[in-house]
């Protein structure tokens, strides 16, 4: 078993990606995720991989498209404003059914916004970041360990369902250090393209060539590709939802939170429990697909939900949808790079428990 090392969340993502056989990183620096690019720039040349600082985020995502089309594990990373620029390319990846890893370490917006942590890209990411009908897999890590583990999961799920996958973190998760056990380095990058019969790996004159494309001028054909894709999304929604439940057994109030705010919420829940308040938490791990099941179950037992988030109530809507608005869904939020304190979350819990 490998031992624990101390790493920043951003660095853990980069090292985990390499250990998962990713040899193609294309990016453009932006705070608070630049450590990913910096790490890749040091490591990739030493292992025969590609680190390329592109001329823009748009160029970087289209380089990912090319590498992914040839069956390689490829990735890019950015923060909110940079991910806006990548939206066009993400839509093309989705339209061409290409798996790739995109990391978004969110900062406050809109516009250039600030550089402090945020979760305000929730809608943008979970509703398919770009034009057209599509989704990408969205994973929300809450520890540095999960940053590493979910990097692997994102590659694997993306390849299984042939779609882009995203790690959606916030600035705090990217910047903080925690002990982490990195994944074993067992993936041979050269073996991956062969597992993808659709990839443009070269025909060797032995098979018809593969075409990777998102242009379908005949509406009948384009409709077919959309319906087929949503068939895969339905399977994803059935089989791949992930979440964590914390102290939910007897909970009367349910906190819902992800990333850094889930950690602040845990402290608040421990404090509230000491006051005798029956409160727990559901922490969605997949944001798309959103884990509806635990909410339907919780709605039978809890009086109300509280979403704790760094936006104006974006996940709050998903909780209302998942519970058919059968319970009130309160909100404890800060925006613009501010983070609610344990005391603020505790006050919110006390209010809902009354």
């Amino acid at each position, binding site marked *: 078993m490998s031992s*624990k090392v101390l790493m920043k969340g951003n660095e853990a993502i980069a090292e985990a990606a390499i250990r998962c056989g990713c040899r193609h990183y294309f990016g453009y620096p932006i705070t608070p995720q630049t450590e990913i690019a910096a790490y890749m720039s040091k490591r990739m040349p030493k292992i025969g991989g590609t680190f390329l600082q592109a001329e823009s985020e748009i160029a970087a995502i289209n380089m990912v498209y090319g590498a992914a089309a040839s069956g390689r594990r490829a990735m890019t990373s950015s923060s909110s404003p940079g991910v806006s620029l990548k939206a066009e390319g993400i839509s093309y990846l989705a339209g061409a059914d290409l798996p790739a890893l995109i990391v978004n370490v969110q900062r406050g917006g809109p516009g250039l916004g600030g550089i402090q942590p945020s979760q305000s890209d929730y809608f943008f990411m979970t509703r398919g970041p770009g034009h057209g009908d599509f989704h990408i897999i969205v994973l929300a890590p809450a520890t540095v360990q999960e940053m590493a583990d979910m990097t692997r999961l994102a590659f694997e799920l993306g390849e299984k369902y042939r779609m882009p996958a995203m790690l959606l973190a916030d600035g*705090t998760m990217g910047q*903080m*250090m925690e002990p982490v056990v990195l994944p074993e380095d067992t993936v041979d990058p050269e073996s991956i393209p062969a597992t993808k019969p659709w990839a443009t790996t070269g025909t060797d004159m032995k098979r018809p060539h593969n075409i990777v494309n998102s242009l379908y001028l005949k509406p009948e054909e384009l409709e077919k590709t959309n319906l087929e894709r949503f068939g895969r999304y339905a399977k994803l929604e059935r089989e791949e939802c992930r979440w964590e439940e914390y102290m939910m057994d007897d909970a009367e109030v349910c906190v819902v939170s992800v990333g850094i705010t889930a950690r602040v919420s*845990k*402290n608040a829940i421990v404090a509230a429990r000491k006051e005798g308040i029956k409160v727990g938490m559901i922490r969605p791990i997949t944001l798309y697909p959103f884990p509806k099941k635990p909410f339907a179950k919780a709605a039978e037992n809890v009086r109300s939900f509280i979403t704790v988030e760094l936006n104006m109530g974006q996940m709050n809507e998903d909780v209302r949808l998942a519970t058919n608005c059968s319970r009130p869904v309160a909100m404890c939020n800060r925006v613009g790079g501010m983070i609610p304190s344990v005391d603020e979350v505790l006050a919110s819990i006390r209010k809902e428990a009354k």
Partner: protein
Amino acid sequence: MTFETIMAGFGGQGLLFSGKVLAHAALIEGKELSWLPSYGPEMRGGTCNCSVIVSDDPVGSPIIAHPNILMVMNEPSLDKFEDTVATGGIIFVDSSLIERKVGRDDVAAVYIPATKMAKDMEATSLANMIILGAIVAKTGCVKCETVSNALRETISARKANLLDLNLKAVEAGIKFIKG
């Protein structure tokens, strides 16, 4: 037991590094920990801080609202964080850089002329390590000898020639407390 430490001062004083060494020492001892820097447009001369939690239990939020250990290396940081320190906490003040005293009587204060001590031992930039030595000696958040091991493992290859001086600085801080 949970030790929540904030180290604050100017950029360039090595606050993030002393926090990293403390975090690494906790890792060596198999403790739970988190290290969170302030990040932003800070640079040499700007304000800068990091939060280090060392605990026997898993760390929830890495954000510290009420530190029980505060290390300050400039007056704005003392002004900013003094009131946040938990009752019974300890404030470590670099008294060669901060003239005023801690105003609260429900917390302890350790005044250590770290920057002057560093200068005297020709290790000008290592006041941070002197205070770190004082913190571990006073609080026992990690063992003194673990800090030396953490330093050996943390110091970058580029600065490996400064390892001995760093070790001496930590030792000076420990001695300042233990006599």
